[in-house]
């Protein structure tokens, strides 16, 4: 995410309410409410967001409890945790990341491909292996059912 940041919520800062910006937003603190940007949103490792996160590109390294909607790309880093549904055109979930919720990936034709993720502790290798067997294409093991 190479664009410059227009809004930064630092660590130890609490935001209650909706945070909207046309430019990029980086969150390192806590937000209770909607975070919305026309460009990018970066959820830092120390960030905790309770509410929807909506942007063109979203990168999650912290915790989000709520809908995450990325019109372009959603990336969940190893430290990232999402408890809620995600809606992204392109999705990257790195090893160690946690995602509990439903995933919708709109296709170019307009039809939505839906995937569900059950709550699953990270590092539960046995369950991961089961998931791997069920769906070979899901290499990270976060999506147990389709």
């Amino acid at each position, binding site marked *: 995410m190479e664009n*410059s*940041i*227009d*809004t*930064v*919520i*630092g*660590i*130890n*800062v*609490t*935001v*209650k*309410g*909706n*945070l*909207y*910006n*046309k*430019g990029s937003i*980086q969150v*390192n*603190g806590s937000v209770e*409410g909607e975070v919305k940007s026309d460009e990018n949103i970066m959820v*830092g490792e*120390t960030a905790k967001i309770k509410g929807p996160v909506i942007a063109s590109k979203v990168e999650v390294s912290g915790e989000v409890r709520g809908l995450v909607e990325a019109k372009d790309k959603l990336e969940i880093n190893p430290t990232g945790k999402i408890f809620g549904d995600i809606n992204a055109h392109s999705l990257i979930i790195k090893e160690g990341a946690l995602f509990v919720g439903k995933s919708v990936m709109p296709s170019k034709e307009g039809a939505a491909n839906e995937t569900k993720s059950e709550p699953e502790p990270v590092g539960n290798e046995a369950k991961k292996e089961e998931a791997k067997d069920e769906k070979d294409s899901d290499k990270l093991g976060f999506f147990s059912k389709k």
Partner: protein
Amino acid sequence: MYYYIFDIKKCKKRSVVADIKNHLAALGISGEYTYPSTAYTTEELIDLGISKKYNTIVGIGDDMIANAIASKLVGLPEAMGFIPIEASSDLCQLIGTSSWREAANNLRFRKIAEMKVGRLADGSVFLTSIELDLKNPTEITMELKDCMIQGKAANFQIANYNPLIRKIGEDWLDIVFQTVDPKESGFLSKISSMLGFGKEGQNDISLIRARSLRLFTSAQIPILAHGNVVAKTPQFIECSDENLRLIVGKKKI
């Protein structure tokens, strides 16, 4: 046409005042020269200049006289000029020079930039920035249009113009503050951070953009502009709707 107000506190050397006057005369833009005194305050002199139909009011001094003139001229057709003496580097960058001679030359070229200013609840304005006079980290609360922001701030600045911050829009104020962990502001944490066990490298700087905000602190804190107290918290701060017509250097946009 030109109405000059000299801040005599900043023009301690008589020779500087004489040099400026001589230079303005040489440029052909001499006018009425005034000085704040017990008889007339700076604000009264500005009102007098406007009532005398001068179309350019020029302040000579630092940020305080610049802000005083801007407070009166914002939204008016009269242009504001400024010749810096001991002015902040931010204000010098705003007008495009730190040299009084060059600033005087710019008055003659009369390149006018229309700009917004920051405004406090009492109507006084600031061209560059204001900051909280924080002796210790203090709980602050900001009420913005759609949200409330809280944190324990160690440094806090609201900028209308700060050359280090890229503005996203001319009618937005840039709020920059550094916070500390409210749970770790005790004596032991100070020692641990001194010994290098602190959480250095964490992102403790916040940057918020807002057109207006209400600022509250746990205790009443003075608000400074260029080191001078201009207000106290709680305070309402906004970006002006009206423009100020400021004469700037040739290279400034």
